């Protein structure tokens, strides 16, 4: 009987997740065994190798699909897509971290441990087929991120960002849990498959409590994806966090939040789509517009990128509310593209910032004449800014094109027009940086030392190549996104 139980669990299907936890524990063990001061090197090597193994395991396991742990998790193409994306983002961030945590005086292996646990939480979110698993995934990710934001303990801004993120995050946990409780009360289950069956058969007689539950769960996801009006925490947390963590937070958790958001709302609450698309229509409009208006006013590149990430989340919601395969695959495509270009942009910002202890080097003026000092870096930033603005031939152009064309073909023409207008406005602040880099004289008195390591150069180069490659040949990624979404709908 026991053998049957274990065979029914299909433990092999969650091998990548097991690997992530093993790597995390190996990392902390190495930190204990190796002498103080030299251990970060060992932890770094183990984490990078471990994440490469996780990506390989996810890739080679892509054929073995199905449920595991009695329907608690679902391993399908959709899960595989996000596994590879999220592990790759974590790998890029960990790859550049070794020297960075030295200059920011973090210097502890818990940094790696928390990143790996956050990754584990995000993987649970993408494969959870039970609201319990999604809840645990969100919490594992969030608790790790609260600690990561506050990693630079001596910095007031970091403390404050962590506190705000924590308080508002815990607040949303309450909403999420209460929403789950209400949905459980109506449907008698927390499993997404059972909820889908129940709500489909209820049809137009869906009880009001189910609507309330779905609304509360939507608030929780909107918070995690930093959508207006649930975005207050994000600029402060993004600015207070160490910049590598900002790059991580604005890409991977956003992708994981959308992955779980898609699975819960497209599958479980799919029969209630008439209601939630209306709400999301407004959320999309205000997210795009407010994010833009606030980003326009910023003088700090780090804050500008933080606010513009709200706008980008708004674009993703535009595709989300089309409630169809085309929109969902556009979301997956855009999440990949956004991850690559945003990490690249943040890395160049880290390089230009002259002193990590006071964060003063993130001002737009610090980029004056960058092309005369570091032509390669300036050209890389140019590619990222053009891509964020959505100008061909970069990947960002196709990302936006797929999103807005999915909105048009689903009949949301007005929304697509608002989106394109917002996209045009956003060109202003991306262009402002480009003008500073290329068309302004350098100011030798104020410019500081550039922080640049071999690892950062490699990662930025990878990001530039990917942005241009996807921009020139978007079909491969789009087909992968389509195949992944087919498993969902």
């Amino acid at each position, binding site marked *: 009987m026991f053998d049957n139980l274990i065979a029914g669990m299909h433990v092999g299907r969650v091998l990548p997740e097991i690997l992530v936890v093993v790597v995390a524990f190996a990392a902390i063990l190495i930190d204990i065994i190796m002498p103080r001061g030299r251990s970060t090197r060992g932890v770094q090597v183990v984490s990078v190798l471990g994440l490469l193994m996780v990506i390989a395991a996810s890739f080679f396991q892509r054929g073995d699909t199905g449920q595991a742990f009695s329907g608690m998790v679902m391993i399908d193409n959709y899960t595989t897509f996000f596994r590879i994306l999220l592990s790759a983002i974590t790998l890029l961030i960990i790859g550049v971290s070794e020297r960075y945590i030295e200059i920011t005086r973090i210097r502890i292996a818990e940094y790696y441990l928390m990143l790996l646990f956050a990754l584990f939480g995000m993987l649970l979110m993408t494969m959870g087929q039970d609201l319990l698993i999604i809840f645990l995934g969100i919490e594992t990710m969030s608790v790790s991120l609260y600690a990561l934001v506050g990693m630079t303990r001596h910095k007031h801004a970091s403390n404050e*960002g*962590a506190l*705000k993120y924590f*308080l508002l995050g815990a607040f949303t946990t*309450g909403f999420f849990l209460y929403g789950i*409780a209400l949905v*459980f009360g109506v449907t*008698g289950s927390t499993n997404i498959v059972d909820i889908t069956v129940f709500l489909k058969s209820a049809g137009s007689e869906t009880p009001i409590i189910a609507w309330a539950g779905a609304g509360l769960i939507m608030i929780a996801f909107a918070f995690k994806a930093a959508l207006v009006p649930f975005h207050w925490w994000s*600029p402060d947390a993004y600015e207070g966090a160490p910049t590598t963590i900002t790059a991580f937070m604005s890409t991977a958790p956003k992708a994981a939040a959308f992955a779980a958001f898609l699975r819960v709302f497209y599958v479980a609450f799919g029969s209630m789509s008439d209601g939630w698309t209306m709400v999301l229509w407004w959320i999309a409009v205000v997210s795009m517009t407010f994010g833009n208006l606030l980003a326009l006013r910023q003088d700090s590149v780090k*804050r500008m990128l933080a606010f513009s990430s709200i706008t980008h989340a708004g674009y993703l919601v535009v595709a989300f509310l089309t409630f169809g395969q085309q929109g969902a695959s556009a979301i997956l495509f855009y999440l990949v593209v956004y991850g690559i270009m945003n990490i690249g942009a943040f890395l160049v910002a880290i390089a230009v910032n002259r002193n990590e202890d006071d964060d003063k080097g993130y001002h737009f003026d610090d980029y004056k004449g960058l092309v005369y000092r570091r032509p390669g870096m300036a050209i890389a930033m140019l590619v990222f800014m053009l891509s964020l603005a959505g100008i061909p031939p970069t990947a960002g152009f196709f990302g936006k094109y797929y999103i807005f064309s999915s909105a048009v073909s689903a009949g949301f023409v007005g929304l697509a027009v608002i989106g394109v207008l917002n996209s045009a406005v956003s060109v202003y602040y991306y262009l402002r940086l480009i003008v500073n880099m290329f068309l302004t004289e350098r100011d030798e008195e104020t410019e500081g030392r550039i922080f640049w390591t071999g690892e950062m150069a490699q990662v930025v180069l990878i990001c530039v190549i990917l942005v241009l490659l996807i921009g020139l040949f978007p079909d491969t990624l789009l087909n992968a996104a389509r195949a992944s979404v087919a498993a969902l709908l």
Partner: protein
Amino acid sequence: MVIGLNHYLILAALLFTIGVVGVLTRRNVLIIMMSVELMLNSANLTLIAFSHYLLNAVGQVFVFFSMTVAAAEVGIGLAIIVTIFRNTESLDIAKLNLLKN
């Protein structure tokens, strides 16, 4: 009077509302954390009440997990509060405005 499902649900909804109002109006970080705990526990109460009346143990199992999660959150939250108190000697959220723009 027989205490039924509705009584539990109304009690939980009231507790949840008190928690939300507490988070939004109080200025002291510790009081805000207590209000958050109130929200989480009202959700737990809802889960247990439904679980009992639906004769379905899933809700009660869920509560075990959510209590663990709440404990972990309090742990990390208090750690953050200790570091911030060392730097500022204050727990008033209104004074934490370095990042306002």
